[in-house]
């Protein structure tokens, strides 16, 4: 079961071994399913490296057949503080 998914233009958008900023969709069941989160995270093409599974999709929704894994380091606001 994937915990998150992410839409990317190319696999280069998901470099391994460094903290990157991503917009991910939270796939946890319930009313808030598919809500976006902006996160700082580590990702890997090794599906078992990090605690949560990440599904990768390309710009037109195509599913990448390789499951990734992700560790969310922290959540960041999706709009600047002054709009909160």
């Amino acid at each position, binding site marked *: 079961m994937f915990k998150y998914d992410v839409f990317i*233009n190319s696999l280069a958008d998901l470099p391994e071994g460094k903290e990157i900023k991503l*917009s991910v969709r939270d796939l946890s069941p319930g009313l*808030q399913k598919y809500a*976006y989160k902006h996160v700082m995270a580590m990702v890997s093409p090794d599906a078992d490296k990090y605690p949560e599974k990440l599904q990768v999709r390309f710009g037109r*929704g195509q599913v990448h057949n390789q499951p990734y894994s992700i560790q969310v380091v922290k959540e960041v606001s999706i709009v*600047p503080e002054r*709009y909160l």
Partner: protein
Amino acid sequence: MYKDNREYIKALEAAGELVTINQEVDWDMEAGAIVRKVCEEKLQSPLMNKIKEYPGHRYFGAPLSTYRKLAIAMGLDPNSSIPEIANVYLERTTNKAPVKPVLVDKDKAPCKENIFIGDEADILNLLPAPIVHEGDGGRYLCTWHFIVTKDPDNGDVNWGMYRQMVYDGKTMTGPLLPFSDGGKVFHGKYKPAGKPMPFATVIGPDPISAIAASAPSPIPETDFAGMLMGKPIELVKCETVDLEVPANAEIIIEGEILPDVSLEEGPFGEYTGYRTSPRDMRTCYRVKAITFRNDPITTISNMGVPTDEGQLLRSFSLGLEMDKLLRSQGIPITGVFMMPESTHHLVIVGVKPIYTNIAAQIAQTVFGSKLGPWFHMVVVVDDKCDIYNFNEVLHAWTTKCHPGTGIHIWQGVGTPLYPFLSAAERIKSVGPKVLFDCTFPLDWDSFSEVPSLVSFKTVYPQELQDKVLANWEKYGFKS
């Protein structure tokens, strides 16, 4: 005509155009799949009374996806022909005084039956935003709706149907394209001034208001809806923004468009029948308030291969606004018909060809107008061809259009949605346009040069035609 979707739904039911689904339906793709199949098979509109995880909410799908439904929405006989419905649209909205909306009190406005402001106004907690297609970038709450905005300089109000995807409980995104009326005010005025633009999204408007919000008429949508309806639209003031919304709509979302924030939107299954415009950074809508009727009905339009209401109604109104435009220029057209099956890309114009290059003048006028970005193929036939009869049009097209001199190509404004464009063209919103001139050259001698049409009506003497018709059943044919 119907003051709200509920009266319209009753009228559809009476005409056999409604299917009521009482078993539970999942908002996550199942409702979308039902609506998709309905569109592809031109079936009745589904009213879904039980939605998973959202008790008390309902869906109304494919609200206007056939000409029968359109005729009902316009208060006409469901069996009216396309030209009959078209004539009523033209008659109600040409050279008539605008019918201005009226303001009603909040206690007369059903859309205020439930009011949520501030933190409570969380889209995903309150509303069953569906996943319309697999692969979509998010939950598209707003597919049959419109966005109300106001010009800060002159107070002009605009209603435009611009899709919105839920980003999180407080945020939506969508392509507010810069050549749309709402887009011009946002990109041209609020954004350069660094000011948030107030908006109100109206979900589940009455069918006439939805037609007005998706029609490219120069008449303000509020007044245009009143003209089509034959009486003023009732509006009520919003809770948190200085805007008015239809009092009888199902759901209202109020908020602000942020001038300096863009967020990813899409991909989405689009009206062209493809998922074309890739995910991109688009306009950010922040939510301040949500109000809705008791047992609210969320409308779902499912864009994809024909025929959905976007294709049908946009073809209808784009074609007829072109009709008005060409007549306003004194061009002797016989009519304009845009085919929904072409996903409003192909328009057929009939004209009395009284001077050379009249077809080019027609194409340049419509491509150069506000309507231009949304279509790219113009087929001009002469006044003897029935524009609503595709067999006749195809015959004229394939026999009268000279491949060397009858096809003209221009560069115009396009949209990121055209499936055939390259990525670079999409980004710049350029769009090639083509004219097929299916009229014979005027300088051909009608006696010696123009080929004679070989049809029952054109090649036999009248007495013989009459004789054959009189004997038709005697020969053994059914009349």
